[in-house]
Structures are given as structure tokens and as C-alpha cells.
């Protein structure tokens, strides 16, 4: 298990990849309209299944909401 922060909450991921972080929130990693930052840097969608996560990593998964 990899222990990371996903949107500010501690999560244990079954796989050390970003896609697992999405699934941990109940989201389909293929879902459109979502972006992901790993430790303060944008991680393009193409790397969501390949980038390696480590314990303590901070993952932010954002989408568009009403605003502005």
C-alpha cells in the first residue's frame, strides 16, 4: 500500500499510480474534465497509469465548478 494525500486527505492506494488515486475517490480515471497535480506539478493524463507514486506524495485532482 502507498500512503499519499489525495485532495488533502490521507489515502492508501492499492497501486502506486495516479489512476489509483482517482479510483480511491470513486472516479473513473478515463473521466473527462479532470486534471491532476503531483507534488505541485501538473501530471498529464498520459502519465496517470505510469507515473510512480511514493509514500507522502501529494496529489490534487481538480475539476471545473461554478465560479468567477
Amino acid at each position, binding site marked *: 500500500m502507498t500512503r499519499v494525500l489525495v*485532495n*488533502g486527505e490521507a489515502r492508501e492506494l492499492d497501486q502506486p499510480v495516479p489512476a489509483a488515486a482517482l479510483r480511491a*475517490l*470513486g*472516479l473513473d480515471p478515463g473521466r473527462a*474534465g*479532470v*486534471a*491532476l*497535480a503531483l507534488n*505541485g*506539478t*501538473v501530471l*498529464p*493524463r498520459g502519465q496517470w497509469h505510469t507515473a510512480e507514486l511514493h509514500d507522502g506524495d501529494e496529489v*490534487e*485532482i*481538480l*475539476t*471545473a*465548478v*461554478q*465560479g*468567477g
Partner: protein
Amino acid sequence: MSATEQATARGDAFVIAGVTLRSRLIMGSGGAASLDALEQALRASGADLATVAMRRVDPAARGSVLDVLERAGCRVLPNTAGCHTARDAVLTARLAREALGTDWVKLEVIGDDRTLLPDPVELLDAAEQLVDDGFTVLAYTNDDPVLAKRLERVGCAAVMPLGSPIGSGAGIRNPYNLRIIVEAAEVPIVLDAGIGTASDAALAMELGCDGVLLASAVTRARDPARMALAMRHAVEAGRLAGGAGRIPKRLYAEASSPFEGMAEYPGAP
């Protein structure tokens, strides 16, 4: 032919970064009581561009603001609302580009939470970074003509000065600064923030702004769709009036009925 079509036919197009917008009214999507209310307001507004904010995905959320914008015929304009540093704003813009497939961004870098006024130094820094990174930057700014010009010079596609603080509904507190900004501008100037009612929007256009961006004035009105329609008319009214060559302001009167030909009735006291 509608007034808008007439205006366009006159070669009066509203173009940002090479994209022609049909409406000079840009809508913010924040503040609506529901997505339904938002959709009705967007439709009534006639806008074809609307902002969204980027926030942590909420798995329990139902409905999507993006679907609403699509149904209402609006392009999406992500903003960086809530960011207080150039760094956060740049990252947020990049995430928005990744999520939404657009390199347009409404850049906000806030310097104070009570007024939500921009921090001029961070704003300029972020604008420069984003332009360098290929973004089409529409920069929300205060009404300082010097900062507006510097934002233009670093390559912003549009400069968007406020009339008064976001959501304040206080209208255009310093129309002189707006006039000065407009006179010097070489990119579109969009009045962004502070509009409270239709006459504010009309005034912004009369002052020479190329467009108006507003959210709360519509979404938080008692009847958002009605206010959206009001704003649509107001922006059109202001645009037309601004180009119609208004009469000068005078202290005294100027008769609109002729003096010649007045009757003279006998027996007057």
C-alpha cells in the same frame, strides 16, 4: 436583423486572441442557486463565453457546470480564483488547460481577502509566465492604468479592470481611470467585477470598454434570468450609445422645440 447582428454587420466584431465572440457580455458562472438557474441565466444572457473555477473534484457532485455551459452555447473560460501567488495561479491555469483542453484563462491573483483586489506584483509575474507558456491570458486587474498597460505589454490578450470589488455590486467607482485605460489600450478592455445593475453595464460600454464580465449581479439577483436579459440589453445599449456620438453635457438647457413660429396671443398680461 437583431441589434447584435446589425452591430456585427457594421464590422463591430468583438475579437479576443483571434476568436470572434458574438456577445460582448461574458458571464461568470459563480453564485447561482442551482445549475438549472445558471442555465436559464446563461441562455437569457446571450453570452458565448463563461468562466468556471477549478476546485477539488467532489465525487458526490451531481451535474456538471461544463454540461450547462455546453447546452447554453458558452465556451469555457477557466479562472484562477482563490490564488494568492503567481505560483499557484500558474499551476491552476495549467491544470485547467489539462482538464478542459483550453489555453484561455482568466487570471486572478488576489492580494487581500476582504477586497479580493489583485496583488499587482504577483499578477504581473503570473501573466508573464502564462503568456510565455502559450496561454491566452485575460487578466483581471484593478483600475490602475499603469498596471493595465504593463499587463498589455507582457502579452495579455485582454485586460479586465474592475469597476469595484468582486460581488460588491457597487458599479464603477472610478470611471475616469477606466476612460484612461481605454484611451491607451491596444488590446480589448473588459470591465470585470463590480457591476450591480444594468445601468452599470451600459456605462462601462459607453466608457469604451469592449465587453463586460459579470456574475453575481445576475446569479445572485432575485430573478437571475430576468437580470441576465437586462444585462444583455444593457451591454448592447451601451455599445450602441458609445458609438453614436452623444450630445455634450451642459449646465443649462438647450431647447428641443423651435423658438421660431411661436404664436403671440393678444391680451397677455
